[in-house]
């Protein structure tokens, strides 16, 4: 029996069990279900370690090659090693170096990067909401209604604008989104069945 066949059998048995256990309330089944959830988390934690080690290996190789981009690899490797080693030695408590680095380096950097979105959104709005066709006109009008209706200045212009924005969000937007969600749901069921039955084997 090849290793691939073993993997397909494990996927089939586990998939069928997780499907069936939902409808069975028995101690043995519940205990097995809890054990499988524990393994799920353990496997996930191991994949994070594998991911971290792979990232480290890739950047160490880049450092060894040494070119003008190596400074970024050096920053990555230093950051990984600092966070891992400091958390092992000093823990991740409130006054630990790990927490200090998170609060004073990682959080401000991420917030800064995210805040740049304001500039890109404004720039994209200038080009993206131009009325060049009927669908583009609908998009631009809907955007203006929601933007105005959701801002306080919109409320000052007309008391009906927030209600109109709410209608756009709760009706056409929900209808489209629900259609997409139903499609995603059906696709997920189909893919899950393909994996359980061994038709979809891309995970091997």
């Amino acid at each position: 029996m090849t290793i691939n066949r073993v993997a397909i059998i494990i996927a089939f048995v586990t998939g069928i069990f997780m499907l069936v256990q939902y409808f069975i309330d028995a101690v043995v089944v519940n205990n097995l279900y809890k054990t499988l959830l524990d393994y799920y988390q353990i496997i996930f934690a191991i994949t994070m370690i594998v991911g971290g080690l792979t990232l480290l290996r890739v950047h160490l190789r880049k450092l060894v090659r040494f070119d003008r981009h190596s400074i970024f690899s050096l920053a990555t490797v230093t950051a990984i090693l600092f966070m891992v080693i400091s958390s092992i030695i000093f823990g991740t408590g409130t006054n630990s170096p790990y927490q200090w680095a998170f609060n004073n380096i990682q959080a401000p950097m991420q917030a800064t990067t995210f805040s740049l979105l304001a500039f890109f959104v404004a720039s994209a709005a200038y080009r993206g909401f131009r009325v060049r066709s009927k669908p583009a006109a609908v998009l631009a009008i809907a955007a203006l209604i929601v933007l105005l209706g959701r801002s306080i200045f919109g409320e000052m212009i007309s008391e009906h604008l927030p209600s109109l924005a709410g209608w756009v969000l709760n009706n056409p937007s929900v209808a489209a989104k629900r259609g997409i969600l139903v499609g995603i749901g059906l696709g997920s069921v189909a893919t899950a069945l393909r994996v359980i039955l061994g038709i979809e084997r891309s995970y091997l």
Partner: protein
Amino acid sequence: MNATNIRRLIFLVILLAVALPLIFNIDLTGRVTDETRQMFDNIEMLQSHSILMVSFDFEASSIAEVRPLAEAILEHACRKELRVVGVSLFAEGTALGEQMLAQVAKKHQLQYGVDYVYLGFRPQYVAAILAMGESIVDEYPADYFGNATAVMPIFRDLKNYNQVDLVVSIADGSMPTYWTEYAVARYDVNLEVALTASMATAFYPYLSSGQIKGLTAGLKGAAEYESLLDCKGGGRRGMFAQSVSQSVVILVIIAGNVVEYFNRRRKWK
């Protein structure tokens, strides 16, 4: 004016539109939307000492938007004397959640392990959500600080979601989807969500179907919640800046269309 200069001009205007209103610190609070009021009312209706589970499902990048939301909800929970159980399904949200909960707990002089507890992060959110439905103590044998949870007074009558009166997921991504699919569908959990504004539209279908009991989003949602609480936090402080920058974006859209109109007219001639 070429495209690069136009982009630079837009960047400069946005910078001024965001920065200047923050200096003036004008308090603008508009009408409270039905969604935010519904969310507020659901927490308001809870009895004293009910269990509120707050899941800090966000990353540091969205801190400016989610912190006011989280602080307003935690403030409400403390005023209502609810027992708060904090968890995080994002590794990055773990430390931030602990800071926010500790800050509010200190202000209201809450007793750790009795009035509130912070359990921290568990990997693989789907498995974590499902496992808490079976047993919270089994999923979290120790809290964020390494204390045994089984001996804590708060867990004497708290086993799983059956004893949790309300779950609030404070998120900047699609995590509430998993709360809905696994905690609501399987364990019939009462779920409310506090989101970044950009994620709000994704959850309106769940709100209208009743799977989510309440929704509030963005800085505006935080400002509305603060006005319902009659307090001034980050939401109300930031609303003027956000409203001015939103108005600038509207003007930019109009300007883009005026330019487009004149470009077309030039081509027709």
